C-alpha cells in the first residue's frame, strides 16, 4: 500500500505530466499556421513507484502525427503539379509568339508577302508595287527572324533555368544532409528531434517542387532522398545533381561529380521536368516546324523568283537568302542582297521579251500561296497547323495543371487531416490537461491536509 509521501510524488508527477500536456497543446496552437508543422501528441505513460503496484504518470515524449505513405504521395503530387505548372508557364511564352489572334504571330507577314505578289501582278511596272514586294519580303524575313530568335533565346534561358534549378536542388540536398546528421545525433542521445524533422520535411516539400523526390527512412532517423532516380542524399552526404547539354542540344541530367551518371530518363517531376519538357519537346518541335515552313516558303519563292526577270532584264536572282539546311532557317532567312533596295530586281515578268509590263511571274509567285509545300499542305495551312498544334499543347498542359493541382490539393488535405492542427481538438486538450492539472493539485492539497491532520494528532 502506498504511503502519503508516495501520494505526494504521484501528485507531483501528475502536475508535471499535465503541465507537459498543456505545453504540447500550447505548442500546437502556437504553430497552427506554421507551414510544415506536424501536430504533436504528448505521450504519457504510467510509471511504477518502487515496488508499489499503484504507479504514477510520466511524460515519455511526444509523437509527430505523420503518415509516411501520405507524405510520399504528397512529394510525388507536388512534383507532378510543379512540373505541369512550369511546363504551362513556358508554353504560354511560346504561344504568345504565335498568337495571331493577338497580332503577334507571323500569319500577317506571310499573308502580306503573297498579297504583295498579287498587287505586283496588277501593276508590274509600278515602282511602288515593286517596293511593296521588297517591304513585304523583308517583313516576312524579319518576323521569322524575331520568332526564331525568341525560340532560340527561350531554349538558352531554359538551359540557364535548369542550371539554377539544379543549384537550388543541391542547396536543399545539402541542408537535408545536415539535418539528417543533427537528427541522427539527437536521436542517438534520446533527444526530441521533432522540430528538426519538421525542418527537414519543409525542405523536402520545397525540393519536391524542383525535382521528383522519393524518400526512404533509415533506422537511425535519417532519410535517404532520391531525385530523378538517383540518390541525392544518404545519411549526412549529399550528391550533386547537374545539368548539361547533350550532343543533340537537349538537356542532360547528371548525378554525381566527375562525369557522374546520366539520369535524364528517370526525371519525372518538379520544375526541372517541366523545364525539360517545355524545352526539349515543345520548343524543339515548334522550332523545327517553323524552320521547315520558312525554309520551304523561302525556297519556293526563290525558285519562282529566279525564273522570272526584273525590269533591268536580269534573271536568276533569289528574293531571299535562305540557309542551306532546314535547321535554323527561321533565324537565318534574310532579304537577298541581290534584290535589297532595288525594286527593278523584282522579277514580275516570266520572259525577257515581256518586260517591263509582263506579270506572269508575279502571278506564279502569288500562286505559291495555293501550292502545297513539301509537307503536302499550303503555307497558310501549315502555319494554321503550327498554331493549332501549339494551342493543343498549351491546352493539354493547362488541363494537366488543373488535374495535378487538384490531386496535390487532395493529398495535401489528406496530410493536413493527419498532421495539421485542429483548434477544436486543441481546445478540448487544453481543457483536459487543465482539469487534470487542477485535480492533481487537489490531490496534493488533500495529502497536505491529511499530513497536517496527522501531525496535529501525533503532536498533541
Amino acid at each position, binding site marked *: 500500500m502506498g504511503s502519503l509521501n508516495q501520494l505526494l510524488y504521484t501528485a507531483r508527477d501528475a502536475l508535471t505530466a499535465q503541465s507537459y500536456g498543456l505545453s504540447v497543446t500550447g505548442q500546437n496552437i502556437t504553430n497552427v499556421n506554421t507551414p510544415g508543422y506536424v501536430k504533436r501528441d504528448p505521450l504519457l505513460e504510467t510509471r511504477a513507484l518502487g515496488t508499489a503496484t499503484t504507479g504514477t504518470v510520466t511524460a515519455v515524449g511526444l509523437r509527430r502525427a505523420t503518415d509516411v505513405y501520405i507524405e510520399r504521395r504528397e512529394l510525388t503530387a507536388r512534383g507532378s503539379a510543379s512540373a505541369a505548372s512550369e511546363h504551362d508557364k513556358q508554353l504560354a511564352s511560346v504561344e504568345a509568339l504565335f498568337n495571331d489572334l493577338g497580332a503577334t504571330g507571323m500569319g500577317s507577314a506571310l499573308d502580306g508577302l503573297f498579297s504583295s505578289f*498579287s498587287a505586283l501582278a496588277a501593276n508590274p511596272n509600278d515602282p511602288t508595287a515593286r517596293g511593296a514586294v521588297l517591304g513585304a519580303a523583308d517583313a516576312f524575313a524579319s518576323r521569322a527572324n524575331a520568332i526564331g530568335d525568341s525560340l532560340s533565346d527561350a531554349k538558352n534561358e531554359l538551359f540557364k533555368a535548369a542550371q539554377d534549378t539544379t543549384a537550388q536542388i543541391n542547396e536543399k540536398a545539402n541542408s537535408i544532409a545536415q539535418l539528417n546528421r543533427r537528427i541522427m545525433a539527437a536521436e542517438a542521445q534520446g533527444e526530441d528531434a521533432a522540430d528538426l524533422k519538421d525542418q527537414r520535411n519543409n525542405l523536402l516539400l520545397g525540393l519536391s517542387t524542383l525535382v521528383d523526390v522519393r524518400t526512404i527512412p533509415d533506422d537511425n532517423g535519417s532519410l535517404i532522398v532520391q531525385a530523378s532516380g538517383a540518390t541525392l542524399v544518404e545519411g549526412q552526404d549529399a550528391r550533386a545533381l547537374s545539368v548539361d547539354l547533350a550532343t543533340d542540344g537537349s538537356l542532360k541530367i547528371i548525378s554525381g561529380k566527375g562525369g557522374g551518371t546520366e539520369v535524364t530518363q528517370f526525371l519525372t517531376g518538379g520544375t526541372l521536368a517541366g523545364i525539360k519538357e517545355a524545352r526539349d519537346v515543345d520548343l524543339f518541335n515548334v522550332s523545327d516546324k517553323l524552320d521547315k515552313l520558312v525554309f520551304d516558303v523561302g525556297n519556293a519563292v526563290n525558285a519562282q523568283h529566279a525564273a522570272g526577270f526584273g525590269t533591268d532584264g536580269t534573271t536568276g536572282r533569289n528574293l531571299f537568302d535562305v540557309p542551306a539546311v532546314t535547321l535554323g532557317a527561321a533565324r537565318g532567312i534574310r532579304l537577298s542582297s541581290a534584290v535589297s533596295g532595288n525594286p527593278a530586281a523584282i522579277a514580275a515578268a516570266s520572259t525577257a521579251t515581256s518586260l517591263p509590263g509582263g506579270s506572269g511571274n508575279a502571278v506564279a509567285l502569288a500562286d505559291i*500561296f495555293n501550292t502545297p509545300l513539301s509537307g503536302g499542305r499550303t503555307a497558310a495551312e501549315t*502555319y494554321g497547323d503550327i*498554331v493549332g498544334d501549339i494551342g493543343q499543347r498549351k491546352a493539354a498542359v493547362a488541363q494537366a495543371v488543373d488535374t495535378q493541382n487538384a490531386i496535390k490539393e487532395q493529398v495535401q488535405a489528406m496530410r493536413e487531416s493527419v498532421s495539421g492542427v485542429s483548434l477544436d481538438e*486543441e481546445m478540448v486538450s487544453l481543457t483536459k490537461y487543465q482539469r487534470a492539472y487542477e485535480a492533481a493539485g487537489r490531490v496534493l492539497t488533500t495529502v497536505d491536509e491529511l499530513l497536517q491532520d496527522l501531525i496535529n494528532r501525533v503532536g498533541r
Partner: protein
Amino acid sequence: MRVTEGMRYSQVLSNLASITSQHAEASQQASTGIRVGKPSDDPIAAAELARLRASSSQTSAHLSTIDVVRGDAELTESTLSDASDIFVRLKEIALQAANGNLNAEERRTMGVEVSGMKDALLTLGNARGTRGYLFAGSQVTTPAFDQNGVFQGDDVAQVVPIGNSTPTAVSTSGQDAFVVAGGRDVFADLESLATALASNDETAIRGAIDAVDASHAQLVNARARSGLILSKLDASQSVLSSLDTQQQKRAQEAGAADPFESYTRVTALGQTLDRAIAVSRQLLDTGSGNRF
C-alpha cells in the same frame, strides 16, 4: 475525416480562386465578345481562324487587284468604243463621198477630215492607263503604235490572280483590235479612204466602204472582248465579295463569343462567386478560433 484549420483555409482559398478565375474569364469573353483570344482557348478554332485569316487576306488581295485593273479595263472598253465611233463616222463620210453628185473639192475636204481622224485614232491606240500604254501588251512604256500606225507592242496579255484556278487575262490586245494579221489594219483602211477622197477616186471610195465596215466590226469585236473582261471582273468581284462575307461569318462563328451565352455565364458565375464568398465567411466565422 479530421478537419483542421489549415484544411478550412485551403478549401476557402482554392474555391474562391477557382470561381474568381472562371468569373474573370467569363467577364472578359462577355465584355470583348471574343471567345478565342489565344490558341489554347480553342486550338481547333484557332487553327481554323489562322487559315480563315489567310484565305480572307487572299480574298482581299484579289478584290484589291480587281479594283486596280478595273480602271484600265474600263478605259480600254471606252477607248475601243470611241475608236469604233470613228469608223461609224468614216462610213458615213464614205457613203456620202460615194455619191456621184459631189465634186472633187468637196471630196478633198472630206479627205482632210478623215486624215484628222487618223490622228484621233492613233491617240486612242496609244491611250495610257495606270500601268502604261493600254494596247502595247507587255511593252507598257512604249507607245503601242508609231505615227504610221505600225504596231510596236506585243501580244502578251496582262494576267492577274483573282481567285480563279487559272490566272485571268485583263488586257486587250492592241494588235487584235487595230492591226491583226489576217484581219484589218484599221489605220491602213482609214488611210486608204483618206487617199481615195483626196484623189477624188469614186471607185476607190466605194471600195473603201467595205474595208471601213470590216475595220469597224473588228473594233466592235475587240470592244466586246474588253467588255467580257469587265464582266469577268464583275463576276469575280461578286463571288469574292460573297466569299469574303462567308469567311468573316465563319471567323465570327469560330472565334466570337455567343453574347447571350456569355452574359448568362458571367451572371451565373457572379452569383456563384457571391455565394462562395458568403459561405467562406461563414466557414471562417465558425472556425474554432472564435471559441477560445
